[in-house]
């Protein structure tokens, strides 16, 4: 099927992009790498969109340190996240997550901001930013605002970003000595969306668990986190099953995904030294 779009414009700066989005009168779509959007257009899922291509805005690319926070530009590509020493040092969870995303061709084009704003419930980054307790930066006609990752994901492909806003950066508290970051997923084939996946951050005996592929949105698994903090591994597995509400599809049933999530979490706990 041939993609059908209403128009295309290449933004030179964030203000330029915002003005293009404003002119699009509600049908603007931000093109930030195109690894989900173009596929959707080619499937005819969406038609008539005014594409605002922000991939040329160099200021949104790359990672920097701002005090004890790591700032990752929204247009930083998955391949760069996997290779950037700054990210490996301060947000090893993301460095570990990036190679799990699809294949090289996609990792060389897809961007972290695009992935977060798309909010696929089976994608790695959304669960990671939940586990990392990250903050997302949105810029819009009314200025700049920050939204905690926990408040950002509202439902299936639904986020707190307004249509006229652009996700420009991700702010992540830098990892401290002793922190542990682990991501595990199970996919039928390397590069597929996972049947189930978990991103875990341990800091000073406290745990944050982000789940992906296990609900209609990325989930911060509060029940399991509390049990883990209390040292109750079996209770943690039982609580996880209640934290999530997995989908059933041609790949696997909800029951299987729920079971798989428990296996993954138990393996992560073992990796982090919990007695089984």
């Amino acid at each position, binding site marked *: *099927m*041939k993609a*059908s779009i209403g128009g295309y414009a290449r933004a030179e700066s964030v203000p330029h992009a915002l003005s293009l989005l404003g002119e699009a009168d509600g049908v603007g779509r931000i093109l930030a790498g195109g690894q989900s959007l173009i596929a959707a257009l080619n*499937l005819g899922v969406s038609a008539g969109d005014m594409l605002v291509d922000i991939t040329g805005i160099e200021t949104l690319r790359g990672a920097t340190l701002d005090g004890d926070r790591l700032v990752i530009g929204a247009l930083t590509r998955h391949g760069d996240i996997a290779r950037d020493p700054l990210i490996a040092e301060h947000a090893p969870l993301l460095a570990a997550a990036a190679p799990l995303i699809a294949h090289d061709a996609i990792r060389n084009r897809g961007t972290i901001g695009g992935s977060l704003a798309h909010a696929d419930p089976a994608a790695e980054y959304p669960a990671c930013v939940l586990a990392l307790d990250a903050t997302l930066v949105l810029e819009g006609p009314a200025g700049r605002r920050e939204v905690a990752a926990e408040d950002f994901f509202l439902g299936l492909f639904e986020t707190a970003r307004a249509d006229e806003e652009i996700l420009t950066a991700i702010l992540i508290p830098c990892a401290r000595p002793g922190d542990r970051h682990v991501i595990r997923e*199970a996919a*039928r*084939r*390397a*590069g*597929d*969306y996972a*049947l189930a996946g978990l991103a875990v951050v341990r800091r000073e005996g406290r745990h944050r668990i982000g789940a992906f592929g296990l609900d209609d949105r990325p989930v911060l698994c509060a029940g399991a986190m509390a049990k883990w903090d209390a040292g109750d591994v079996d209770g943690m597995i039982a609580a996880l099953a209640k934290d999530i509400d997995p989908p059933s*599809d*041609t*790949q*696997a*049933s909800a*029951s*299987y995904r729920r*079971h*798989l999530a428990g*296996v993954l979490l138990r393996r992560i706990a073992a990796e982090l030294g919990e007695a089984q």
Partner: protein
Amino acid sequence: MTIRFEDPNRPNSYIGRTVPRPNAGKLVAGRGRYVDDIVLPRMVHVAFVRSPHPHARIGAIETGAALAEKGVLKVFTGKDLAEICTPWEGKLAHLQGMKTPPQHPLAVERACWVGEPVVAVVGRTRAEAEAGAALVEIDFEPLPAVTDIRTALDKGTPVLHEALGDNLCFRKSNEAGEVDRVFAEAPRVVEATFKTARHTGVTLEPRVIITDWNGADGQLTAHVSNQAPHMLQVLLAGHLDIPESRVHVICGDVGGSFGLKVHVYPDEVATAAIAKIMGRPVKFASDRVEAFTSDIHARDHEATGRIALDENGMILGFDVDDWTGIGPYSIYPRTSAVEGLQVTNLIGGPYAFDHYRCRTSVVFQNKGICAQYRAVGHPVAVAITEGLVDKAAAEMGIDPIEIRRRNLIADDDYPKTTAAGLKLEGLSHHKSLDSLIEAMDYEGLRAEQKDLREKGVHRGIGIASFIELTNPSPFMYGIGGARISAQDGCTVRMDPDGSVVALTGVTEQGQGTEAIMAQIVAEAVGVSPDLVRVVTGDTRVTPFGGGTWASRGAGIGGEAALQAGRAVRQQALEVAAAMLQAKAGDLDVRDGIIVDARSGEERLTLAEVGRIVYFRGDTLPKGLPRELMQTRHFITSDYPYAFTNGVQASYVEVDTDTGFVKLLKHWCVEDCGRIINPLLVDEQIRGGIVQGIGAALFEEVCYDASGQMLNGTMADYLVPMSAEMPDMVIRHVETPTAESALGAKGAGEAGTAGAPAAIMNAINDAIRPLGGTVTHMPFTPERILRALGTITD
């Protein structure tokens, strides 16, 4: 004259060697010419409105809005095309009792599966045609759908085609010996049910066709991605009322076919019919989404099988009840009954036993049409056979290798006719098994498996012996009245510079046909393979032939090429003898040079022969034959099919917590007779194994109970990918067929035939100690955990 194949130092010894593929450079450089690369003057594009319903009556069709869309030129309904194109029925006369209704290029009264073409919209571009198609309004009245195989013939199930009376397309039982008595008295009877998942071919290049009607000379030209150009020529001519001689089919480079491109598709015939109406070139290129719903599917089988054995583990008989759902129409012209028919012939194929019964029931349903796809029926029959043999071995405490040793037909017991009625010329099951055991270090692997099991690691070893039908005679299709050629031909021509052109009726779709033809002709004539140019896929140019299917290219087309090449060589020698005042029998051609056969002394180049014949024929004796262009055709006649054999082994590790299977290694020992190009054969086997791995672990076209397809994209339909593929060790035993001088049998399907069974047996070997077995493909992680009882809801 015979070729001393056993002597690797013989002159011009290209047969049996790995030589570079003549077409590889072109394809790698991006200079191939696929149908999609062709742009013709005045060419327009067609897009199809396909049925969103599994089954629906077609009411009013509103095309006004589509016609008003910018760039839309014409809109055609089923009734429009029925006026110039006759319908077809995929039936063969020798398949008694077979039923199938007439099928039109566009559905006329009812749409019978999701994806069936209903309306064709022609535009200046594909995008404009699609935009028009989106505006066509069809008044569908949904009808009850038939989807389940086993209940398709039940009284309460709606009848899909009223005129046929029931949903049975075809039923056949193949029976020998005393099955009921033997199963009643046998010391051991083991039973199991099996399912092989419906899957599809997923060729890298989808189906594409450009048809052009030239009214001035009354000729239809079709550029098409297809593997049987002459068959398509004959059928397009018949249904569009054009003389066969006025239909020209050209198949240039083809990006994979696997049997998928050997059938008649309604959208392709519609494209030809539209070209005839509009009098201009019309192009249809299937996109990936419509490929999933409109390409043929295959392998949708459910079976219950029993094996009877004596107390020593000797097989007494097989009794199998196979059911398959083939969609709403039998495929044209090969029929959709052949897959089930193959199952009734192939069960128990490698083994010696006397009592046999296998029935297949081929039923209609409102899903995509199922048809011949690589290794037709074999993966199903091999899975049932080898699943039962392994289950029996496990229950009787016999090692899987040992039970096969006891039961495989002895290597010196040929020719043999099996209980199922197959005539076997010569196979090498035991030699192949010996080679496999050595290649995989069977005992060592068993020891490793045992050690690891004590550590909680669950590995399994699976074995699958198999036979494979290749080199078919007219017994497959011709005797049923189908104009599908089982013979094939090759014309070899020597040009003035001593180079050679070979025109062959078999086709190339990526597997290397052109490479082996170049090798065979090079050896036959006595020139280097790089001096041979091969032409395939053009009905105006090549000898009339069947194309490439059923692993017939090397065995049938190759023999024709060998004979034609030898004839050219003989003719060149006769001319040279006249020039040299020598006897042709004392001369030989080696590397393009006429030599004294005994001493090897160089006498004359082939180029010099060419110069004399083509430019100075006056210097040759009057009446001396000088046709440096010879055609030979070949057909098998002693056996209906040349069966090959082989054995595969799979080594897997099952994660019993997640149900995930890791493929650790795969082995295949295969006997395809004379090997022409070892590397190409190895890669054919590997590619086939990959498709078999797809069947075992990944591929399944999923429909819901109402007949809607659930996973028609590359994201949801899982094809096997390189990251999951194990290392594969390929070995060969060579038992040439005596039907031909070349001795080659087919090699294209053996990998696919045996791999699913080997993997199934390996998984079961791993999980059987935990109390689980799986027989329902693909073996998804969830199905494995359900077999283990880990998940029960």
